[in-house]
Every structure is written in structure tokens, then in C-alpha cells.
């Protein structure tokens, strides 16, 4: 896929800071797609190669599906929603006030947190993005829930650019979906600012077509006594990478980066996080659970960086994998980089299969084997889902998981 050629064609029509786009194009030109260039290795992309993406050729053409049909099969809430179809914001909520929901294209703002020079996929998004959604919650306002839906209805590469800003003491829940039909790339960048005392709950469901590529890079800055509480459910796409950079920049800041990945066939999903503890009394915790069937491969890379000043940091990281087949694989790379001397940081990883005794116990009570296995997998996931405190949203996640489970030839 020649992204640079697309950039050359589009450059005159792309809105916003053209110098920034040009710099991003330079960065992307020199870095290339991670893993796609022979002889060039990247530690940050140690277990995930985008060679299949380099080899893919997306022909933008006729719609393969109706956006409305895709929307209809997502278990959406009745809350306000913004919808991006093929990278363009086509629907914004009318009644979200005092929360402002605007389109990127109307006032392009590339934010301050992203690093196109270090992240090739962020560079790619920066050079090619056409649109996205900005959500702003004024100080002191409880913005309730806003849904952010990214849909692909045709072959192509799409680069939505989103921003979420919470003012001091504000609250918001963002429920984000990614879905589509066909062979395509959704390469999303989200920039998040959570001001002092604010609380953002960010729940994501990645249920892309199993022929699709999904890359999502999030940068979050969490201020004093603020909370960024995120949960990602990955079960779609042939290849996905969820990368989150969370910086705790105010004392008492909290970041939860939880996730569950359910994979089968030859799916590959990479969950990569970097948590920066820059000031004292920050808390970060991550529980990432993988259920891997068929020949699928799960990746967890978690890095906790504790600066010298960040005393009394509490960092926790747990990666667990349930392998449902002997051909499934999990790669787990936890990293702790600690410069402060009074911190509590721990990490752990477990890998296992379903327990034969538990299966027999259920079967001896009349539960058929398939149902017994499914019950035990859901039990394994329950701990991860428990991190989602909103019951209605947790129910939606269970609906998505249930549908995934029904599709499996196990």
C-alpha cells in the first residue's frame, strides 16, 4: 500500500497545519511501516509486523455495506453519538450540550501530545487524516455518556483523528466502537486531556471485519486527582494494535488501562501500553486478559516508567492468557523502569488452558461440553469485565462477547 503516494495526491486538499503534515510525511517516509522493511527492527513493534498491511492494496470503490446496517448490529446505547464513516464524521449528536461535539475538519487541531516523529502509525494518521471528532466537556459538567463510532463500509485506509478534553472536575463516559465490512485499515489517533479532578471513563469495542487492519494510538494526559479509566475489548480485525500512552502529570492521578482480547483463526492482536508516572502519588493499574483460540496470537507489552520525582507511585500490571488451542500463542513483555525509591510496582503474567476438572464438574451436572467451556471462558473474562463499573455498558460488552462466541467453530 503506497500511503506516501496518496499523500502526494491529497496534499493540496488536506486541511490544517500543512507543515506538520509534511513533517509527519517525512517521518513516515524514513520509518516506514513497522516490520515491513527488511533488516529494520523496532523494539516497540517487537511482536507485530505490519508487512501484511504493506502488501495489502486497498482500492477505494463501491460500498460493501451500508453504514446504517453496521450501526444497527452494534449494541449501542440510547446516549448521544458521533459517527465516522470511512474516516469522515457523518453524524454528530444534536443534543449533547453543554458538551461540545465538533468535527475535526471544521477546525483541525492536531493537539500537543502525539509523537509523529516516534510513532510511524501516528505519523501516517497525521499526514492523511481528513476528519474526526472532538469532544469537550466544560469544567464542572457531568457530560454523561457520548458514543463514538468508527465505521468502514468500503475498502480503503481511514485515519480518524479524535480529541477528548475534560475541564476541571468534569465527568464523561465515552463508549467507542470500531466496526466495518471488507478489507480496510482504520488507523485512529485519540488525544485525551483529563484536567484536575476530572473523570473520564473510556470503553472501547474493536469489532472490525476479520479481514481488516485496526491500529489505534491513544495519548492521555491525566492531571491532579484526575482519573482516566479505560477498558478495551478487542475481538475483531485480522491484525490489530491498541497502543496507549498515559502520562500521570498531576499528583494523585489515576490511570486504568484494562483490556480483554478474544481471538481465533489467524487473528493477531497487540495491546501495548506505556504509563508515565511523572509526579508523586499516582496510581496505575492494568489487567489484560487474552482468550486465544485456533492459531491466533495475542501480544501484551506493558511499560511503567516512574520518574525520580514520582514517589509513592502505585503501579500494577497483570497479563493473563487462556489458550484454547495448542497452536495459539501469547507474547508478554512487561517492563518496569523505576527511578524513584519509594514506590510499589508489581507485574505478573499467567498462561494456561481450561481446567479439565472444572469442565468435568460442569458436565457431570448436565452442562454440555461446549457450554461448559464457554461458561469457563466467560468466567475468566469476568474478572477483566468487572473493571467496567457501568452495568449497562458491561451488559453491552457481554452482548458483543456472546456474539463472538456464537461465531466460533470451537
Amino acid at each position, binding site marked *: 500500500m503506497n500511503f506516501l503516494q496518496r499523500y502526494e495526491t491529497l496534499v493540496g486538499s488536506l486541511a490544517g497545519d500543512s507543515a506538520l503534515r509534511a513533517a509527519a510525511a517525512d517521518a513516515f517516509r524514513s520509518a516506514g511501516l513497522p516490520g515491513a522493511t527488511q533488516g529494520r527492527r523496532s523494539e516497540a513493534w517487537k511482536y507485530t509486523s505490519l508487512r501484511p498491511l504493506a502488501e495489502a492494496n486497498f482500492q477505494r470503490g463501491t460500498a460493501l455495506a451500508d453504514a446504517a446496517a453496521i450501526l444497527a448490529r452494534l449494541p449501542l446505547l440510547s446516549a448521544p453519538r458521533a459517527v465516522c464513516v470511512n474516516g469522515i464524521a457523518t453524524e454528530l449528536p444534536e443534543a449533547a450540550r453543554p458538551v461540545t461535539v465538533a468535527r475535526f475538519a471544521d477546525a483541525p487541531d492536531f493537539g500537543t501530545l502525539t509523537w509523529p516523529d516516534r510513532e510511524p502509525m501516528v505519523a501516517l494518521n497525521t499526514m492523511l487524516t481528513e476528519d474526526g471528532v472532538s469532544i469537550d466537556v466544560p469544567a464542572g459538567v457531568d457530560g454523561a455518556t457520548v458514543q463514538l463510532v468508527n465505521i468502514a463500509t468500503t475498502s480503503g485506509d481511514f485515519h480518524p483523528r479524535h480529541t477528548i478534553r475534560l475541564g476541571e472536575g468534569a465527568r464523561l463516559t465515552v463508549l467507542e466502537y470500531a466496526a466495518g465490512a471488507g478489507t480496510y485499515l482504520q488507523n485512529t489517533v485519540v488525544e485525551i486531556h483529563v484536567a484536575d479532578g476530572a473523570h473520564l471513563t473510556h470503553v472501547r469495542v474493536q469489532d472490525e471485519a476479520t479481514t481488516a487492519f485496526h491500529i489505534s494510538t491513544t495519548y492521555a494526559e491525566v492531571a491532579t486527582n484526575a482519573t482516566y479509566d479505560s477498558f478495551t475489548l478487542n475481538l475483531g480485525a485480522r491484525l490489530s494494535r491498541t497502543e496507549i500512552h498515559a502520562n500521570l502529570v498531576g499528583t494523585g492521578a489515576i490511570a486504568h488501562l484494562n483490556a480483554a482480547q478474544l481471538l481465533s483463526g489467524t487473528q493477531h492482536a497487540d495491546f501495548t501500553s506505556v504509563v508515565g508516572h511523572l509526579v508523586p502519588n499516582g496510581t496505575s493499574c492494568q489487567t489484560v486478559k487474552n482468550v486465544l483460540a485456533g492459531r491466533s496470537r495475542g501480544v501484551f507489552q506493558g511499560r511503567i516508567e516512574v520518574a525520580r520525582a514520582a514517589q509513592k507511585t502505585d503501579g500494577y500490571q497483570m497479563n493473563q492468557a487462556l489458550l484454547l488451542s495448542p497452536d495459539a500463542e501469547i507474547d508478554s513483555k512487561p517492563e518496569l523502569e523505576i527511578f524513584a525509591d519509594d514506590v510499589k510496582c508489581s507485574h505478573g503474567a499467567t498462561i494456561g488452558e481450561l481446567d479439565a476438572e472444572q469442565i468435568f464438574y460442569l458436565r*457431570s451436572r448436565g*452442562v454440555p461440553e461446549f457450554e461448559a467451556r464457554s461458561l469457563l471462558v466467560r468466567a475468566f473474562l469476568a474478572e477483566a469485565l468487572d473493571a467496567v463499573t457501568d452495568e449497562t455498558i458491561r451488559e453491552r460488552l457481554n452482548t458483543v462477547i456472546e456474539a463472538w462466541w456464537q461465531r466460533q467453530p470451537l
Partner: protein
Amino acid sequence: MLEINGLAASIGDKQILKGIDLAVPPGEVHAIMGPNGSGKSTLGYVLSGRDDFAVTGGSVTFNGADLLSMAPEERAAKGVFLAFQAPIELPGVNNANFLRTALNAIRRANGEDELDAVQFLKRARAEAKRLHMPDDMLKRNVNVGFSGGEKKRNEVLQMALLRPKLAIMDETDSGLDIDALKIVADGVNALRSPEFSALVITHHQRLLDHLVPNRVHVLLHGRIVRSGGPELARELEKRGYAELIAEAA
């Protein structure tokens, strides 16, 4: 009801059951006694279909059907229930959900309507109350954090809800105080009917005071070496297995 003929079973290359003949007529409770390692628990597992034991000979018919050819869940649907000696913990599985899943799976297999959550909870709460179990045991994860006695009572609760035709109680009495013991015995006694049989595996006479068996069988080295009436259990309690072991040697 249950007819076992020449049943032999092994695990790995170790032969554990070496030809068991046993018939439990409908409506009867039979006790299986014997020292550790004689094959009592293996018999329970083989009857309920655990696949790490290989059946190397013999046959088992249950109400006329070939039990050994059925999957564990089919046996359960036909009415076989094994109360585990060491009930398994299921972290993340809610006890009420577990019980309802099991009950509905069995109802479905028998062509009956499934119970909805409300109907089920009403029934489960009534049974729990009858067994003197606190309501919160239904809300907790299956056997997780349960005391030994609570786990055994949970087995009895499952039995009460699933209403089996053949209950195999694998040392359900071990480690229980007298009150809990009575609950287990009452649980079985409550099901007693001309269509219900039980195989009670135990070390002790104690349980059999409350749950009087029609027959007592002594299992030794994978074979039934003696059978008799309830008085056999009392005799064993007094004299131990030593004589029988000497006789068998």
C-alpha cells in the same frame, strides 16, 4: 436401576477396579465402604464418566441403557449425580447461574421447558432454606472461599435441585460435623422414593446412622469382597478392615 457387571477400570497402567459386580434396585440405598485406595472414588468417577479413567472391561446399565457409552452430560440428563468428595471451585462463575445452567441443560435434554431466572431463584431459595444454607451462598462464586462444610452442602443443594434418579455420594460426610452430616443424610432421605437410588461411599458408620442403607458392600483392592445388611457397617466400625484384608491376602 443400576447394574454393574465385571467392571474393570484403570488409570495409566494402574488397574484400579478389577471386576465389580453390583446391582442397586430402584428405591434402595447402598453403602460402599472400604479402606483408602480400594477404588471407591474411582467407581464414582467411572459411573459419572470422567475420561481419565479407562474402562477395561465389564458393563454398566442404568435403567436398561448402556451407561458407559454416554458422555458425562448425558448421564446427568438421565439422572446420574455424583456428589464430589472434593467439590471443584469455579472462580468467576456465580453459584445461582451455575445451578440454573445445569438445571436447564438437564431439562432441555429431557424435552422440558427451561426455567427463567425468577422461577429458578424461587426454587433455589426454597431448597437452600430447607438445607439451612444462607441465601448469599447462591450469589457467591461456585465453591470459591467456601468452607469444607459449605462445599458439601452446596453439593447437596445441587442434588436437591437436579433431582437425580441415582445419587453417588463420594465421602460427602468426610470432615463434617454432626449437624452438617444430618443435612447430607436429610438431603438424600428427602429424595427417597421408589424411583430413586443412592450409592453412598463412606468410611464411617456415622453417616449410615442417619441414612440407613438397604445393603452395605465392602470394596477392597478393586473388588467387592463382602456384602450384607446395615449390620455389616456396624461390624466394620467395631472390628476394622484388618480381618477382611487378611482374608483377601
